[in-house]
């Protein structure tokens, strides 16, 4: 079987041009070359670490940052602790998130109306945490879609996102017992260009009139265009993003919106994956830590001001603990 020369492209029929390129490279057996190149790279990376001679900063530790180190060890330690506990079988509760319960209903509605479900996992690549969260949510949406035998459409703006999303959807259909319903054309790459992608998605919404639109991931200026167009065809819309500038548009124009951290929580909640649930618990520890010290700090500051400075020494200590020192 001839491997498609570049699986990124949504219609991956090999062309003569790329087949030629492919053969050329195989001929030069660049594969073996690449292995040695990799090893060289690692050696090169390690090399400068061995160079101690440079005249630089003589300090081995910035004492003013000791507080920061303690806070970092505490938060990171908590995240790790809960992640490890969760992978070893500890069961962690995650509160109900309204938008999540709505998803099943929205998919059901699309089934009744005989119209497709549109899912957009944001417009950023996999190095953005929000995209990863979006794809995790896609997995459970796809499972619902397979159970209800509805149509699913997932246009993506990055080729890597497409590859990952395809695997995810395929797996979801398999686990729902309907691998026969899956086909690759459900998930496809459009373009990397922000507005090119939006122009496509807009056209899709207007022409296919999906009953349900789900937007989960990193969105920018296009959030408004998508939500507005979806609204104009009367689709049920559920959105989720941690992009604070775009939240107002989703909140106003969509039926349900996952706000900021809720997006990450939803992906943990839906996937029930231990490492996600555990680190979510660790993040909650961080929030509890922040709340506790805000409360203590505020109380001390209030008493200190109200009594004309009786606790100012304690306040200085607290401020010192949370002071971000310049290098």
């Amino acid at each position, binding site marked *: 079987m001839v491997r498609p020369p570049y699986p990124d492209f949504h219609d991956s029929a090999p062309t003569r041009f790329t087949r030629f390129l492919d053969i050329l490279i195989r001929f030069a057996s660049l594969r073996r070359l690449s292995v040695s190149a990799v090893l060289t790279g690692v050696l090169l990376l390690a090399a400068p670490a061995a160079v101690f001679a440079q005249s630089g900063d003589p300090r081995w530790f910035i004492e003013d940052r000791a507080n920061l180190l303690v806070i970092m060890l505490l938060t990171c330690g908590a995240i790790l602790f809960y992640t490890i506990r969760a992978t070893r079988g500890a069961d962690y509760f995650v509160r109900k998130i*309204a938008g999540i*319960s*709505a998803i099943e*209903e*929205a998919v059901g509605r699309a089934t009744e109306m005989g119209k497709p479900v549109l899912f957009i996992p944001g417009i950023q690549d996999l190095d953005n945490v929000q995209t990863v969260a979006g794809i995790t949510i896609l997995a459970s949406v796809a499972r619902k879609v397979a159970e209800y035998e509805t149509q699913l459409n997932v246009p993506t703006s990055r080729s890597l996102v497409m590859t990952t999303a395809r695997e995810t959807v395929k797996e979801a259909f398999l686990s729902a017992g309907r691998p026969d319903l899956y086909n690759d054309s459900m998930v496809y790459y459009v373009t990397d260009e922000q507005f090119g992608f939006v122009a496509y998605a807009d056209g899709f919404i207007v022409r296919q009139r999906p009953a349900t639109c789900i937007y989960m991931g990193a969105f920018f200026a296009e959030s408004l265009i998508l939500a507005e167009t979806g609204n*104009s065809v009367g689709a*049920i819309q559920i959105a989720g993003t941690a992009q*604070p*500038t775009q939240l107002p548009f989703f909140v106003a124009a969509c*039926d*349900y919106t996952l706000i900021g951290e809720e997006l990450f929580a939803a992906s943990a909640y839906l996937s029930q994956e231990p490492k996600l649930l555990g680190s979510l618990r660790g993040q909650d520890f961080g929030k509890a830590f922040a709340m506790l010290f805000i409360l203590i700090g505020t109380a001390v500051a209030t008493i200190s001001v109200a009594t004309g400075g009786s606790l100012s020494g304690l306040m200085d200590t607290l401020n010192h603990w949370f002071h*971000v020192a*310049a*290098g």
Partner: protein
Amino acid sequence: MASGLAKLGNLDRRIIYLLIALAVVIPLLLKLVFPSITTPIVQNIFDEVEALPPRSKVLLTADYGPSTVPENQPMLEAVARHCLHKGLRLYVATIWATGPPMIENMSENVIQRDFPDIVQGTEWVNLGYKAGNQGVINSAYSDFHNAFPTDARGNAVGSIPMMAEIKRLEDFDLIVAIGSGFPGVKEWIQFGGDPSGVPVAGGVTAVEAPLLYPYYPGQLLGLMGGLQGAAEYEAALVTAYPQFEETSTQAIQNMGPQTVAHLLIITFILVGNIAYFAAGREKPRLGVNR
């Protein structure tokens, strides 16, 4: 009556488009200008520049592209004009690929027009663009010459007289970051101001402004938000130095259409809601409640 109002809710969007276009074009044609009043968050930046002794070193960044010129360019030009007028040394740089032409335009509008005698290399320098986003700030923090080895014209920074006193980021007296997204003012705070202790002032598009308020006044000296922020800085500048009234009122003038368009959008929201209530508030379409 109620059904007429309800029908209003289905107005063709092209009529809305036309109205908004008119709301911008008509005030532009009539050259409508409203007074601008400087608020403390902008006045702080003005006062800081005002208080710096002559020959202080100010890093001014232009981290935006043509799409936000109407908001950002007046900020860049007003701050540059103010700094040069006060005899401060101005270092201009960008970490946006689209930034260099913005600096060129500033140089044309400010330096060539108002300060033709100023010498590049001793009083101002254009350090140009470097790729690498926040990484550039990070490396400028530890070694400025390493991050910016040449200026925009390819001169090695070692050969530029005014670069002699700049070794690390902390050698600057003030950073004024003008930006419109990532990387921008937030990154200059996180990677520049916070670790080095140099005060950072910002100028951002209106979209970004609310996100930066949490850093003010602790980590951010002051903030110009959107066209209004730019107009406020111009107002402060023109009040103190009336000789710039000819050249530095770009943003103040553009606030005319802005005001009319705001009023129109407010009307849209109100009329839209009246139509919505006239048609009878619909129940949420899904059973669950937030």
